[in-house]
């Protein structure tokens, strides 16, 4: 008696043996001499099974290891119309596809609705540890009886609902591939990169949901999402959603002078660097200029010292003691107010944390501790937290009314997303953003670049904020002189 064709999973691929009658499967299969079997990319699982079923082939499916899951929501809200429409569009497309929603439009809740509608083991892939925390917190609240776990950020759980970072999910793609029926790709524009695309390619998940605010990639690879997740099934713009709650806010720019000795050291370092740049005809300020500097600095001793001087000068400008004095003053002024302190690098975060004894969050903080810190921040037990860039991409930190930016990079997007952190919440609350910069250093130019100009249109997902920002442009400018 001939054995029934059996489909099995092998490290991100499917093996079909013995070959079934009919022709439908041949389009997907490749003969593998190494195992003397037909091998099929896991990504084609659904199409293959559908094709075989349509031909009436009996198939023993030992490939999939995912299971039905009872998901009883403990957290239910009336979905916004755009959430309802997006869910319906995704289901109508066979539960495979990408939904484009602006930041803050409630994509986590949309994913919860998709999980409730699908009721199968679910993998959620996120780009940052902070988003990982946010999803984890939400899923714990939404499905208190479901097994929710984490992969990445210091955890390695093996649960029917799993939140993973893109990096960890890519590393373990071969092992995760047949365990989940639904995969949710948060900020799915990250997926098509060479390293992470295997999460989708090595997975047989028949149901896939991509979520993003900015689908388009500069390398054009977003078109791959069609094959990796499915077609774009729904899109709505920020403008269409305007009227969402936004707190009014103002921006205060504080300029701190370097101390006498810091000033002298800074000037000497910049002088060293500039002499080298002049001798070599390099002009900073453009990307090519900077690349030329990096190249030249690897070629000679003088170049290397110029680069080291540049770095130390940057550190003086960013990490000046004066900023910490200003911070102490601001924290005293806003004692008790929910406050976020942002710095540009981890060293500064830990310096502030040690000197002021404030809880810190960086990319090194384990997700469970991060969850605990944000929980205490929410309840008010910790009124102030200090963090580096890690809270950047679309993370909800509720009820912060003061933000202090101690330094930053020149990226406009980052700047506005940081703003969004406090702008997004609280009804009728007046939020204040302080930007503390050092006077007459290269950093001041960074700050100028960071403020969106009226000529340059900010990122699409931030349309919500544009009018507020224009109003803020005329906000107060204070020159802050440390008293000591």
């Amino acid at each position, binding site marked *: 008696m001939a054995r029934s064709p059996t489909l099995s999973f092998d*490290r*991100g691929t499917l093996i079909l043996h013995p070959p079934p009658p009919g022709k439908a499967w041949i389009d997907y299969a490749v003969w593998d001499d*190494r195992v003397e079997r037909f091998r099929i990319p896991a990504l084609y699982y659904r199409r293959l099974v559908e094709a075989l079923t349509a031909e009436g082939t009996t198939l023993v499916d030992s490939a999939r290891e995912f299971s039905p899951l009872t998901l009883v929501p403990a957290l239910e809200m009336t979905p916004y119309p755009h959430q309802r429409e997006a869910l319906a569009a995704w289901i109508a497309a066979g539960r495979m596809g990408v939904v484009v929603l602006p930041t803050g439009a409630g994509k986590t809740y949309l994913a919860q609705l998709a999980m409730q509608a699908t009721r199968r083991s679910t993998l959620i892939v996120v780009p940052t540890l902070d988003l990982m925390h946010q999803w984890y917190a939400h899923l714990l609240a939404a499905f208190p009886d479901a097994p929710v776990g984490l992969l990445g950020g210091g955890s390695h759980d093996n649960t029917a609902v799993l939140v993973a970072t893109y990096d960890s999910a890519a590393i373990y793609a071969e092992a995760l591939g047949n365990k989940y029926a639904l995969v949710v790709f948060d900020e799915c524009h990250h997926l098509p990169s060479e390293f992470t695309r*295997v999460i989708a390619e090595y997975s047989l998940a028949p149901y896939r949901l991509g979520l993003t605010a900015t689908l388009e990639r500069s390398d054009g690879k977003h078109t791959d999402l069609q094959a990796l997740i499915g077609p774009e099934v729904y899109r709505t713009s920020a403008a269409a959603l305007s009227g969402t709650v936004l707190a009014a806010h103002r921006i205060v720019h504080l300029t701190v002078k370097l101390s006498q000795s810091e000033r002298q050291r800074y000037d000497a370092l910049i002088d060293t660097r500039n002499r080298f740049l002049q001798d070599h005809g390099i002009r900073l300020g453009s990307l090519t200029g900077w690349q030329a500097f990096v190249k030249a600095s690897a070629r000679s001793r003088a170049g*290397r010292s110029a680069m080291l001087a540049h770095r130390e000068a940057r550190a003086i400008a960013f990490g000046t003691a004066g900023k910490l004095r200003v911070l*102490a003053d601001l924290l005293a002024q806003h*004692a008790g107010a929910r406050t976020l302190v942002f710095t540009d690098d981890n060293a500064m975060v830990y310096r502030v944390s040690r*000197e002021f*004894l404030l809880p810190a969050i960086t990319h090194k903080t384990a997700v469970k501790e991060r969850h605990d810190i944000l929980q205490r921040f929410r309840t008010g037990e910790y009124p102030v937290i200090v963090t580096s860039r890690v809270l950047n991409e679309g993370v909800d930190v509720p009820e912060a009314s003061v933000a202090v930016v101690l330094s930053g990079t020149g990226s406009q997007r980052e700047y506005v997303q940081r703003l969004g952190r406090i702008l997004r919440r609280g009804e009728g609350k007046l939020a204040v953003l302080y930007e503390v910069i050092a006077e007459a250093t290269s950093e001041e130019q960074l700050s100028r670049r960071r403020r969106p100009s009226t000529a340059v249109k900010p990122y699409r997902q931030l349309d919500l904020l544009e009018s507020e920002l224009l109003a803020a442009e005329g906000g107060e400018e204070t020159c802050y002189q440390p008293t000591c």
Partner: protein
Amino acid sequence: MLPADLLIQRYQGEEVIPKRLPCSADNLAIAAELIALFRAATGGTRADLQAQLQVLEGEETDYRMKRGLAHLLESAFSTFEMRSLIDPVMLRQRVFALSAQSVPGPQSSATTVAAVAETLSRELEQDVSPEQIRAWLYADLPEQQLLTSFDEPTPAALIERYNLSQAQGVLYRASHVVITAHRNDPGEYKLLFRYGKLFGLMAYIEGDADHGFTLTIDGPTSLFTPSTRYGLALAKLLPALLHVTRWSLTATLVPRRLSPYTPSVARFRLDADCGLVTHYPPGKVHDSMLEQAFAERWSHTNTPWRLEREVDLIPIPGSVMVPDFRLVHPDGRSFLLEIVGYWRPEYLRKKFAQVRRAGRHDLILAISERLNLERAGVKTADLPARVVWFKDRVLPKAVLEVLGE
């Protein structure tokens, strides 16, 4: 191994040539200096160590080489541990909760730390100072960990490891490698395949024991599209390959496009004379005493049949069988000999299934009479192999009898 940013390589046409440090007096001196620095830093924090390394790096342009050597010392020869009397996560919770009671600032910080030190002194019944509290607060950060032991290499061994790591680094971008294993005796293939399997790699094998083999090595999904997914595994395989006697390797690379001059396809070649030194321990010469004793007895037997060790590879779907011995007669006849001694039932079942799938007719199995094959569910009657039964030792005479001598 080295992170991608510490790899140094150049192109010669489509050929990639990794950095190779000669064991010159200069380089040995640099290695010795770094080793001495690590030795002196034992007991201190990683942050201290890194600060010293930065000073040593200085303003020289060879800093990437030094950084690479230091990376290897740190990752392969050093052990770091956290030192704190109390779990830092718990300590932070206590400190920050107390600190939140007052307006943050340098003065209130001092008061908070002193208060926590006092409570902990009482709880732990030993003196805890405010300085200790500050030191333990982030004791779990990698840079606060202490270098507790340093397994010191010689300067030459460090440079050998560096050269190996640079060669391994080229393979990060490999889509597959083709290894030509020339006629080898002993072949030492078992270790190579054991590691290959461990790292999730697959091999396509062509050739025979007299002319050598061509092994194409990549992974399951390479069948559909070549990718660098298995590059890291291939890099980890290289030290195992270095145990094989005579071979040459060609890796097909997908280079990162750094400039318009970077070719879209590149190659990397290496052979047994490359001079690279493995740090993987060698496989045992013989898998068991039985095999070793048999080889010894054979060497004292007067017969034209020559005994070769681990020279043949029998591809089996999804795997490979490396028979223990091969017997060659000057007239060209040859047989493969596999000794089956004392093993677990699963192993026996697998071994006999392999023999059946091998489809070879020149196999001789020497099987111990002590094995309970019935109970392992193995039938010897329909085996496509000649069988020599033995009690305690495999005698050359019994094997020669089966050969018809």
